[in-house]
Structure formats: C-alpha cells, structure tokens
C-alpha cells in the first residue's frame, strides 16, 4: 500500500460540496506550510478535488484522511460509502461517466498524483489513495 509508513495528521468529513472546498483548502494550507512548489501543490490539490467530489456525488459521502511522511511527500486516503465501481478500468478512462459529466475526473486524478491506488467492490464502497511530492 502506498501509504505504508505514513502518519495520519488530519481527517476531513465529506458530505456536501462545501466539504470539497474544505478538503482542497486544508490540503493546500498543509502543502504551503511544508514549503511545496506551486505547480506540485496545484496538481495535487486538483487531484484531491476530483476524488473528494467523486465521494460526495457518487459515493454518498465519505471521509478523507491526510498522511504525512518523513520524506517530502503528502498522502491522502478517500473512503466513500457508495455503491462501488463495477469497472475500475472503465472509470479511469477519459470520457467515461455514469452521470453525464465529461469523465476526466478519476483518470485526471491518477495522472496528477505521483502514486495512485483504487480499491472498489460493488456494494463495498470505494477507497482511493494518492501521493503527491512537495
């Protein structure tokens, strides 16, 4: 698991679109405090926004846990309470959407993060883990 050896430092409840803004803000502030470069922060916070929105819109809400490392990285785990994703491969492909959006979201988050893991079972919710460098 990509978060092995990391320490939990924050936890953000995701139940509405205000929480998506809160998750972005809290992670941007933490990356600023850690001295992250502007482009790295923008890329990772954009990825965070995509997975947080997915949890709220498709996952019936969830929780985002933030992790710190000894090295110059940050990690998150986003766990939702949704129906799960039937085909992860399909969900990660650009242009795929079950709700009429453009479908760049999850695949975009994968491209914008340094490491990306997704676990999902129909009926069992979805867990996304991502790493970003500072």
């Amino acid at each position: 698991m990509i978060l092995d050896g990391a320490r939990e430092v924050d936890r953000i409840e995701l139940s509405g679109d205000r929480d998506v803004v809160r998750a972005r803000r809290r992670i941007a502030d933490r990356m600023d405090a850690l001295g992250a470069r502007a482009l790295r922060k923008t890329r990772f916070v954009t990825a965070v926004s995509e997975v947080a929105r997915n949890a709220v819109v498709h996952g019936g809400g969830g929780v985002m846990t933030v992790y710190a490392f000894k090295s110059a990285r940050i990690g998150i785990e986003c766990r939702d309470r949704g129906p799960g994703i039937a085909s992860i491969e399909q969900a990660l492909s650009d242009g795929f959407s079950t709700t009429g959006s453009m479908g760049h979201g999850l695949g975009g988050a994968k491209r914008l993060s340094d490491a990306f893991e997704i676990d999902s079972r129909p009926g069992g919710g979805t867990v996304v883990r991502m790493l970003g460098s500072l």
Partner: protein
Amino acid sequence: MSSAAAIYPVEGVLLVSIRDDITDTDIVDLQDALSERIADESANGVVLDISGLEIVDTFVGRVLAQLTSIARLLDAETFVVGMRPAVAMTLVELGMYLPENRTALSLTHALAKMRQMRDE
C-alpha cells in the same frame, strides 16, 4: 448566489470575479445568474476573472466552457483572465484545453481586445 462570485457591469461588459472558496452549487448558480444578466443588460462581452482560483478542476473547467458557449449564443464574447500558470499546466494534463474560451492576461487586455473586435 453566495458571495463566492460577484458580477460588475463595466463599459457594456460583465466582469465576473470568482473566489477560491466557490462550491459546485455556487458555480452552477453563477451560470444561471450570468446568463440572465447577459440577456437583460444586452451585454456584448463577459470577462471571467479567475485570478483568485488556486485550482480549476474538471467540474469548474466544464462550467467555464459552458458559460462561454451560452454567452456566445446570446451574442456576447467571453474572455477568461488571470489564469495562473500552474492552473494552465494542470488543465492541459487533465485533457481540458478549453478551446472555446478566449483568454487574456488581465482585465485591461481583455477590454482592449473587445474594443478592437467591436471596431473591426
């Protein structure tokens, strides 16, 4: 619409300033409010100032593209100003090129380009 976005009329152009804490609901409300204002005030242009936005994700990018298309159907040109370089690089990585959006570096540049277009 909450205070996360404000619309100011300037020289027949609607200037829209978007704050970083805008939610998905706010931005959809902004799309509605702005479409009404373009028609009501016969605006000939819209300038979307996104200098306050630290990130533009796929949802916000899609709404910006839709706003431009709606404005065009209502005979108003849209300029996006103040995009941060890191935001532009991230949008391209996301595969969102916003081909319909005209961009300008600042409000002054956008107003000058619009005046030029009107005079041609």
